């Protein structure tokens, strides 16, 4: 078994601020993902990474940067937080990239922008 840890659990930022979310996994999985979850909009893929130092844009990548410097970690940066923004960011990993590879999810980081 393994676990995905996301830090921080709660993140409060100011409009225009650059904010970084971190994700660690000890599954030794190759592929990692960042999703954004908004109330009423389901989950949308922001970035994913097939392996260390690889980055692939998802449907919602505008306004975000990502970094995968180690196999076990995947960071997401909100480049300029939007006023009144509220969302949950979920990190996930899978053993490899592929449609049938189960994705394991972390508990999420809840973002509030004042």
């Amino acid at each position, binding site marked *: 078994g393994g676990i995905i840890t996301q830090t921080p659990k709660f993140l409060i930022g100011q409009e225009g601020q650059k904010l970084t979310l971190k994700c660690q996994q000890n599954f030794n999985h190759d592929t990692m993902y960042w999703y954004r979850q908004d109330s009423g909009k389901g989950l949308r893929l922001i970035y994913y990474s097939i392996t260390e130092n690889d980055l692939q844009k998802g449907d919602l990548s505008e306004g975000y940067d990502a970094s995968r410097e180690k196999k076990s970690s995947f960071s997401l940066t909100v480049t300029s937080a939007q006023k009144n923004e509220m969302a949950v960011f979920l990190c996930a990993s899978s053993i490899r990239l592929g449609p049938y590879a189960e*994705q394991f999810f972390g508990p999420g980081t809840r973002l509030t922008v004042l």
Partner: protein
Amino acid sequence: AQSVTQPDARVTVSEGASLQLRCKYSYSGTPYLFWYVQYQRQGLQLLLKYYSGDPVVQGVNGFEAEFSKSDSSFHLRKASVHWSDSAVYFCAASLYNYAQGLTFGLGTRVSVFP
């Protein structure tokens, strides 16, 4: 466009009653199909997945789902729910060409009352 639709935003059931959650997909081919569950303030957990074979697939905690190609559906069922089944359930799909990742429905919030 590829999409996953969960027509019921909320479902309320009594403990011990049966549960069915609906999922319809719109894809040009037959996608890989998944059901995930999200308990409050936690990440998503995989309940079951399907690509081919027996159209009824068994999952964890007594859940099963039935695939119908003619109806483009993948409905989730449980014969007798417990209060601990209260959660949000997401249907998701992906194609073999995984470049677009998983597409999630908006989720169905299930409340089980004693």
